[in-house]
């Protein structure tokens, strides 16, 4: 029960801080939208081709918006010496991880909804037919991505070039989460021509769970002195 | 000159062979040189600190030992 309280308090703290000026959320949405807008505008004429690229465009936008969000999530901690506070607090560091990860997941999720809405609008494509499947893919993909972003954000907060360090760590390792998500999303959007949609979702889920569990288990070493 | 005409006769694919092996050599030489430089620097620092230690050991009782 105590663990849940810790998770909840961290999550609530991040939500409350964000609610005050909503900077992180706003910049994530704007950044993600910019990428979607860019692709849509540049390749407007070749609609068929553009639709094929839509899953990749969306996930690239999510990837970059995510990294932006993860950076801000830890930079505010560092500015107020909260990282030291967390290190010294007599709580299980893994619970801190879960709290921060859920906050990151939530913010990125909100940004994703915004991006998807405008993508559907601009690309004239409805996500509704495959909505359940897409939600599953989005959830698992974002989960793994946020887990990696949380632990790497904490690691990068200890370095001189924080934003760059997070990106350099995040992309090679989260690469397959993104690739499988793109693949599964593309399959879902085309109405599952290969039939086996569960396998696609399973792949994304499998990789994400592996990375989430690994990050969860290793986070205590990141906060240790 | 004899060597120049021979070189022209060698097919262009061997140019890539030469480049590949040269690169491998070069990168290892560079790394070894880098290691050697770091070792020299570390050795100098070690010598400097060791001399400071022997300095402070010789001036045991009074005064700062000029660090």
């Amino acid at each position, binding site marked *: 029960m105590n663990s849940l309280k810790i998770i909840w308090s961290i999550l609530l703290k991040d939500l409350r801080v964000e609610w005050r000026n909503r900077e992180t959320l706003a910049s994530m949405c704007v950044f993600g939208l910019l990428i979607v807008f860019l692709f849509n505008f540049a390749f407007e004429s070749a609609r068929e081709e553009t639709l094929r690229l839509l899953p990749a465009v969306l996930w690239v936008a999510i990837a970059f918006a995510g990294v932006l969000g993860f950076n801000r999530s830890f930079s505010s901690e560092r500015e107020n010496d909260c990282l030291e506070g967390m290190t010294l607090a007599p709580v299980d560091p893994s619970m801190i991880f879960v709290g921060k990860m859920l906050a990151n997941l939530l913010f990125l999720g909100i940004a994703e909804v915004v991006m998807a809405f405008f993508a559907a609008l601009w690309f004239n494509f409805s996500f509704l037919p495959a909505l359940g499947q897409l939600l599953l893919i989005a959830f698992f993909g974002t989960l793994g991505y946020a887990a990696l972003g949380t632990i790497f954000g904490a690691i990068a907060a200890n370095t001189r070039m924080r934003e760059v360090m997070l990106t350099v760590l995040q992309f090679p390792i989260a690469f397959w989460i993104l690739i499988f998500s793109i693949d599964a999303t593309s399959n879902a959007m085309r109405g599952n021509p290969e039939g086996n949609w569960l396998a696609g979702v399973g792949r994304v889920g499998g990789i994400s769970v592996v990375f989430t569990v690994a990050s969860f288990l290793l986070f205590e070493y990141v906060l240790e002195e | 000159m004899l060597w120049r005409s021979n070189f022209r006769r060698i097919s262009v694919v061997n140019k890539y062979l030469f480049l590949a092996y040269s690169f491998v050599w070069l990168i290892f030489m560079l790394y070894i040189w880098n290691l050697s430089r770091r070792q020299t620097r570390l050795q100098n620092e070690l010598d400097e*600190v060791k001399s400071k230690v022997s300095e402070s050991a010789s001036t045991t009782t009074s005064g700062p030992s000029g660090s």
Partner: protein
Amino acid sequence: MNKKFPIWLHFVLTLAGLVITLYMIFLYAPEEMTMGEVQRIFYVHVPAAWVSLLGFIIIFIASIVYLMKRSQHADELAHATAEVGFIFCTCVLVTGPLWAKPAWGIWWTWSPRLTLTFLLWLLYVAYLMLRSYLVNPGRAANLCAVVGVIGFADVIIDYMAIRWWRTQHPQPVIMGGANSGLDPRMLATLLVGVGAFTILFFLLVRVRLSLAEMRRELSEIRHALAFKLSED
């Protein structure tokens, strides 16, 4: 290990291994039918790829050992291996295109070996960048060990994912099918190359470790000196 296997002997073995390998590459292995002489790059490309993978395996094991036992030796081994492994990995990525272009007309392909090596290279870069940009030396070993573990998990996932991806999006097998239909003399040369490169790898790691040892000695003496000065 160091006392039982003196470094001069290691160096002699490395030299012998490399010379024998060179002999076999150029004077023993037969010329390839379609590609000609340029195929001999393969005898450097593949052993280097194997050694870079071995390097990351060592980083993984050393990272786990560090997280479990807090052994500074493990941490130093991981760092040394990362540097040397990075050098070999770069060799693979440079010799690859230099072989591919004259042999098949393209500079690059996302074949399984090259894709894996590229991702491995990115992981090496990430690890080394983390090492050099850390401002808190107390945490350095911890953080790098965490990255070493997650990185290796990623390598395993890379391997499986690339294989699966290639069943979905098959490519004409160009560089990947190296072991299919290999002349026994070529195979022998390849194996000798792998052996020689591995010995070279360990020699370089050893030399790099001596640097780490010096740094450790330096920091210990500095601490002792500072302590002593503070007492006066």
